[in-house]
């Protein structure tokens, strides 16, 4: 169970930043890489979808949306124990939502292990971004007197950069199909993993910055940020079994549940729940859960899935 080299890039970035190296990637590179990853994942999913027939997937999509909302409620209940309403709601939205990069690393890990997964998992990725954000805002506003600007929230959620690129890629892949996409594959398919390595280097650098924030947030946040993914992975596995997914699909759904957002959710929460302290949710989501999933979670979730399906 050796580490994938892309994960080593994450470790390199983390160590470099912790050692206070002056290594910094230009912001424009970070944005470019994230645009690339979102389109590439979308395209791949769209092509896969274009080969599917039947309406089973539609029901699964509905199930997965409900799952995302439910996880957010669970996370809120746990976090409310110690955090204020706004902070608990905003952080819950991060955990109910998903991490694109964690998904990408998990997919790469799966294919290295020779395990197949259903194509619709990419669609799940796209649709699971959203319900948590809506539920998070509802939770933050419940009982309060601040009114929610739903127009702005809907805009943020559905027209946010990551949603547009993921859905856009999905649609283009679906319309163009495997043949149409062939001329694009030297970039979006062949270079996917090495580009992911560069992105993870950057994530390592950024994660180190958020670790500093942990010291002020205390043990509760650290504990939640490691235990919640485990719990959510199990809930994801159970749902996958109920939905009749394969081992690979179950593992990816577990990973989606276990992963927490650090792109779409922070942006949406900063707009819709501005009184929440972003340092708390980012320290948990990016500082703890992301590396935890990358280094331990992903192999663990595959092992769990294999036990369940054995």
């Amino acid at each position, binding site marked *: 169970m050796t580490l994938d080299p892309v994960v080593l890039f994450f470790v390199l970035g983390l160590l470099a930043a912790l050692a206070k190296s002056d290594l*910094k*990637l230009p*912001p424009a590179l*970070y*944005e470019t890489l994230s645009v690339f990853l979102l389109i590439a994942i979308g395209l791949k999913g769209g092509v896969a979808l274009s080969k599917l027939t039947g309406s089973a997937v539609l029901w699964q999509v509905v199930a997965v949306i409900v799952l995302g909302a439910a996880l957010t409620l669970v996370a809120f209940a746990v976090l409310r124990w110690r955090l204020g309403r706004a902070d608990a709601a905003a952080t819950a939205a991060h955990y109910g939502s998903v991490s694109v990069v964690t998904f990408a690393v998990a997919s790469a890990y799966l294919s290295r292990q020779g395990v197949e997964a259903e194509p619709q998992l990419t669609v799940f990725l796209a649709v699971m971004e959203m319900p948590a954000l809506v539920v998070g805002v509802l939770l933050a506003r419940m009982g309060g007197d601040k009114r929610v600007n739903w127009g702005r929230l809907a805009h943020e959620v559905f027209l946010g950069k990551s949603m547009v690129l993921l859905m856009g890629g999905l649609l283009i892949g679906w319309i163009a199909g495997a043949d149409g996409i062939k001329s694009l594959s030297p970039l979006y398919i062949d270079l996917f993993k090495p580009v992911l390595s560069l992105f993870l280097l*950057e994530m390592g*650098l*950024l994660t180190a*910055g958020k670790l500093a*924030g942990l010291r002020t947030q205390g043990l509760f946040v650290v504990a939640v940020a490691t235990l919640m993914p485990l719990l959510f992975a199990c809930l994801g596995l159970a749902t996958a079994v109920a939905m009749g997914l394969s081992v690979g699909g179950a593992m990816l759904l577990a990973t989606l549940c276990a992963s927490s957002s650090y792109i779409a959710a*922070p*942006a949406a929460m*900063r*707009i819709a729940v*501005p*009184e929440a302290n*972003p*340092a708390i949710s980012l320290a948990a989501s990016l500082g703890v859960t992301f590396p935890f999933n990358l280094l331990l979670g992903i192999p663990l979730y595959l092992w769990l899935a294999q036990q369940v399906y054995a």
Partner: protein
Amino acid sequence: MPFHDKKLLTIVTESVLEARLVKDIQRLGAHGYTVVDARGGGAHGVQGGAWSFDRNIRIDVVCDAQVAEAIALRCEQSYLPDYGLILYVSDVGVLRADKF
């Protein structure tokens, strides 16, 4: 050369507010604005500039004193409580008073 007295209002805040602030600034009567990407540190910690929600912007507006006050008031009420934001005004001389 006759320079005319105006106010220069400078706001430094999180980049997520850019679109909303630009709308506010125009609505409150300024005739223009200039935005620059920035990083920095303050009461809300370090904004390193690597991500969109980890980045600051600096907005400069040349305008009349009343407009500057109106924008400052809007910032104080709507953004200061929840966002990392600073704001300061200074005196400048401009070339064509009617442009501002």
